């Protein structure tokens, strides 16, 4: 490996000599690094839990999350902050202001992207739509068809980010709403098969968009006893080219991401960090140029 790198650098050196002046260094040796920060199921938990709370006394709170996020951004400006849904419902802040303050604070925190959870329909799809002007970040969902709803064109299947020359594709997946949310609330929203949609979207992100990193923001839930119910673990095993699934819905607290073999028998990660903004998830991806690699070797340190 070292020899290859040496040869390559020499070749670059020769190329340099003929043009003079320019340096390839920045492009050759700097290892690129993307940090993904994430939350899920924050459920309007704006303030820390009350000091009398039986489990989470004084824990959580947006003002603390902000300090952590800022620290990480200072450390690595190439950071994305993502949320896997269920931003709404859980404290009187939602009952009184319908999600306004949740979105405003998330905008202050400079969230980059989120997906919708079932509770985000609690004030109906119109209630969600009404709060959208308070969100300076986008929502993605690939398997909710919003064509005949107010959200048509406002929620895209995926979004692409460029950070330090790395192309990152992030798509969203939502849970089946029938039986979980009243139809009066989600109206003409159509739920599409998340596995099929994920397979199509990843193909597009990988082969047409040439993304270097593919992330799925999922509100499907981590895992279920019911073997027929789709979950993040099942989705991971049934797809390929997803590097990370950031999950929600089941309020599963994973001390570290779960390593899952995808359809190509390659390692990928599924993560979820409980609920109520009690934790901040972080996954760091380090990159190298593809052309001096023969196989997709990667080191995963969990």
């Amino acid at each position, binding site marked *: 490996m070292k020899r290859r790198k040496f040869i390559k650098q020499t070749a670059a050196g020769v190329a340099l000599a003929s043009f003079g002046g320019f340096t390839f260094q920045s492009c050759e040796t700097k290892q690129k690094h993307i940090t993904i920060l994430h939350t899920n199921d924050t459920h309007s938990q704006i303030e820390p839990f009350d000091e009398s709370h039986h489990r989470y006394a004084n824990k959580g709170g947006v003002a603390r999350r902000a300090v*952590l996020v800022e620290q990480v951004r200072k450390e690595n400006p190439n950071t994305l902050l993502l949320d896997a849904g269920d931003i709404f419902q859980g404290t009187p802040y939602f009952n*009184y202001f319908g999600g306004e303050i949740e979105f405003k604070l998330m905008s202050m925190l400079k969230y980059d992207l989120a997906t919708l959870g079932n509770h985000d329909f609690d004030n109906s799809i119109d209630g969600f739509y009404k709060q959208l002007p308070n969100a300076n970040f986008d929502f993605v969902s690939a398997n909710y068809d919003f064509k005949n709803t107010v959200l048509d064109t406002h929620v895209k299947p995926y979004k692409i980010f460029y950070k330090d020359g790395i192309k990152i594709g992030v798509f969203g997946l939502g849970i089946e709403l029938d039986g979980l949310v009243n139809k009066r609330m989600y109206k003409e929203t159509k739920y599409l098969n998340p596995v099929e949609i994920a397979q199509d979207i990843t193909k597009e992100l990988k082969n047409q968009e040439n993304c*270097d990193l593919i992330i799925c923001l999922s509100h499907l839930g981590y895992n279920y006893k019911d073997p027929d119910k789709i979950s993040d673990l099942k989705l991971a095993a049934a797809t390929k080219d997803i590097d990370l699934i950031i999950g929600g819905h089941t309020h599963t607290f994973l001390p570290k991401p779960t390593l899952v073999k995808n359809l190509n028998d390659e390692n990928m990660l599924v993560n979820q960090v409980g609920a109520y903004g009690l*934790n901040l998830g972080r996954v*760091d*991806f380090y990159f190298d*140029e593809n052309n001096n*690699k023969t196989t997709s070797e990667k080191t995963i340190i969990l």
Partner: protein
Amino acid sequence: MIQKNYLVITNVIKTKCVLMKKIWILFFLTFLFISCENSSQQVIKITAKTTAINPEIQQDSTYIKKFLPYKNKMIEEISTILSYAPKNLERNDGKLQSTLGNLIADLSYEKANELFQKETGKTVDFSMSNYGGIRSGIYKGNVTVSNAFELMPFDNTLVVVELTSEKVEELFEYFVAENKANPLSKHVQFIIDDGNYTIKINGKPLNNNRTYFVATSNYLQKGGDEMNFFVNPESLYESNFLIRNAIEEYFKNKDTLVASLDQRVIIKD
């Protein structure tokens, strides 16, 4: 004039040359850029770390300043006085009924019936909710919005189920077996006499040739508290109206909250 033209032409040539140079540099830079950016990047290492947001972490006061006005407005609204309670109302101050349970059952009936009639033109026969769903008492003094939240912190909504008379019988058997003050509305007269019981609904005995419309919460309808007789009704009407909002509305419309134990459940020894 000629001189000028010449100048213009040389200028054009010069500009062209500079332009060509620029294009060339641009091309070269683009080449460099592409050679650098276009080769796809591959993940070689992944690390992960989840951080607990514990009390030790400092709070960014700009965020607190942002939500404080909302909090204050909320506190103000939540402490709005809606009504007055001349005496304590609790869920456990009677035998298989309670003053607070009766109040909740009756106001739930009124709201559910109002919504159901508007939608279907039909009348609800009675309501039943659950003892466990009443999370707090109402104590002598001012009654505020906060009381409604404490009473009903869950976002349960009113539903109306159509039950066969067999299912209604199951409901009363459950009531006896549970031996709890599960709130029933005043439309029921339930006489329990040493293990036997008689039921009257709106003054009439249970009729096996008809169905009954019963108001309850969406939580119980889904089988909460094992009220399985609600799970597969003949028909289901979902109002989507929060029980808490029904409570708040009722408080708003009453100067004084009056509720008493009455004849809806009679236990003969």
